[in-house]
């Protein structure tokens, strides 16, 4: 197969000044704006009242006892287990002991839960609105422009990604259209934002999406719609099945072995 002649397209150098550069600047500025909008809109974390704190920390205390039981000697572990199991079963740690057995309140009507949802909504909005606006702006003004040529060869598969909005079948996939440059900016500006705003900024949506995954586990444990009484029951069972052993069993022999082997 004959070698394809290198495609050359005469581009007006003004394309660089009027398309490539403006898109990049606008993307960076929106990122910064979004960061500060998120900071401004962020509500400070809601303070726990005393009873909620007690309920949650007692739960965590049980978890700690269950996972670190090995530092305790047999009798002291059993004493703790009896105490915790008894308190969990009688609901001594519950925020509102008289509501035991009732179904948890509907998260949609619970004002505490609404706060969390509003926060999520706000974040999503701060993400979506600028993106929609900029995308339609680019589509309206710059669609169909080929603006740069990538300095490395690339397979045909990338054509649909890099030449969005340019319907030319035979063109080398190395040529990039303006809308593709926009997408590249969305994903590639993270390090620029890190440089400008510090590493925990809210500018890039990639970080936002990643962050969304992280705290789920913590939120679920005490989140709205979870019945703490049931959780306490589960924890009681977990404690009950612990088969106790202690790190203190035979520690002196282990130590002597360690010293002797040195």
């Amino acid at each position, binding site marked *: 197969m004959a070698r394809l002649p290198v495609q050359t397209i005469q581009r007006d150098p003004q394309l660089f000044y009027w398309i490539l550069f403006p898109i990049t600047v606008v993307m960076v500025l929106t990122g910064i704006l979004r960061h500060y909008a998120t900071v401004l809109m962020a509500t400070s974390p809601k303070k726990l009242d005393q009873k909620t704190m007690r309920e949650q920390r007692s739960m965590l205390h049980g978890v700690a006892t269950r996972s670190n039981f090995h530092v305790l000697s047999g009798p002291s572990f059993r004493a*703790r287990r009896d105490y915790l199991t008894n308190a969990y079963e009688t609901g001594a740690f519950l925020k509102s002991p008289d509501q035991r057995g009732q179904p948890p309140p509907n998260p949609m009507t619970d004002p505490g839960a609404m706060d969390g949802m509003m926060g999520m909504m706000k974040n999503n909005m701060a993400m979506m609105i600028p993106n929609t606006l900029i995308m339609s702006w680019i589509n309206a003004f710059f669609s169909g422009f080929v603006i740069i040529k990538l300095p490395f060869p690339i397979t045909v598969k990338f054509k649909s990604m890099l030449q969005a909005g340019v319907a030319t079948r035979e063109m080398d996939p190395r040529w990039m259209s303006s809308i593709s440059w926009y997408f590249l900016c969305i994903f590639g500006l993270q390090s620029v934002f890190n440089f400008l705003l510090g590493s925990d900024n809210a500018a890039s949506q990639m970080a936002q999406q990643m962050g969304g995954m992280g705290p789920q586990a913590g939120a679920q444990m005490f989140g709205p719609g979870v019945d703490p009484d049931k959780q306490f029951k589960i924890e009681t069972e977990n404690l009950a099945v612990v088969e106790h052993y202690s790190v203190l069993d035979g520690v*002196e022999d*282990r*130590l002597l072995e360690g010293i002797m082997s040195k």
Partner: protein
Amino acid sequence: MSSSLLRPPSHLPPATALHNSQQAPNILNNSPGAVSTSVIQSLLSTSESQELWTTYENLLLSLLRTGDDDSAHLCLARLAKRFGDDNERVMALKGLIKEADANDTATLEIILKEYDQILQDNPTNLPIVKRRVALLRSMGRTPESITALISLLDVSPTDAEAWAELADLYFSQGLYSQAIFALEEVLVLQPNAWNVHARLGEMLLMASKTSDAPRHLAEALKRFSRSIELCDDYLRGYYGLKLTTTQLLSEPQKASKQTEPDELAVPSSATVQKLDEAATEKLAEIVRRHTAGERDWQGYEEAEITAARELLEKASEKTVR
């Protein structure tokens, strides 16, 4: 900026604390008084770091310790400007400075009233709860302090710091079994803290003087062993181990009747003998190398080394006799 300012200064030796507070004018002049919140300025100036505020907080504590109250007030003013007067930690620091300024008990009483007032408005203000406990303790009202601490731990049983303080308070009252319980709670929360293992061993050793000697001694031996297992060359661990084995060897324990199946038993006397030898050897090595000025062995405190040396001398006297 020295790295010792980034860690809480509670256990720094006096010389380091003095050194830190001598740096104060330098730090206060060179660091920004308040980081501007305006967008343009924060883009241009260097961004604020967490270290800066940690430094301010620790510097404040060092300054109070060395008596430079004016600079301490300056530190507090900057922290308050950045985080606001109603920030919980700033409130606690403010209370701390007031306590330091107070000259007589009457002033302290007023501060205590203020704490009560704050807690009435917001009972979950943990830094203030802890200040209140500490203030009660320093005023000599230990039982009240213990009560306050217990009510704090009822609300927040996952607070290792509070459990440790409770252990210390009980210990100061001679209530060993309660102190041991509290220290065990610290270990539940921080299972690999070798210093807490050793501390628990020390408490058990002291408790063995009053009651139930074999069981306590056996556990003390195991606690010290565990702390050495977690941290090689840990002087306190070896020191305690040596004391425990001496105790065990001097008065042979009769085999305690096993009341519960998994109760810790005293190891055989051969094992105790071996542990005793190992501990003596290690203590001697630590003392020798520290005194010889070997570079990697200078981390021990002078007082601990002296104590170890005395213990060794006493032991050797006994063998000579």
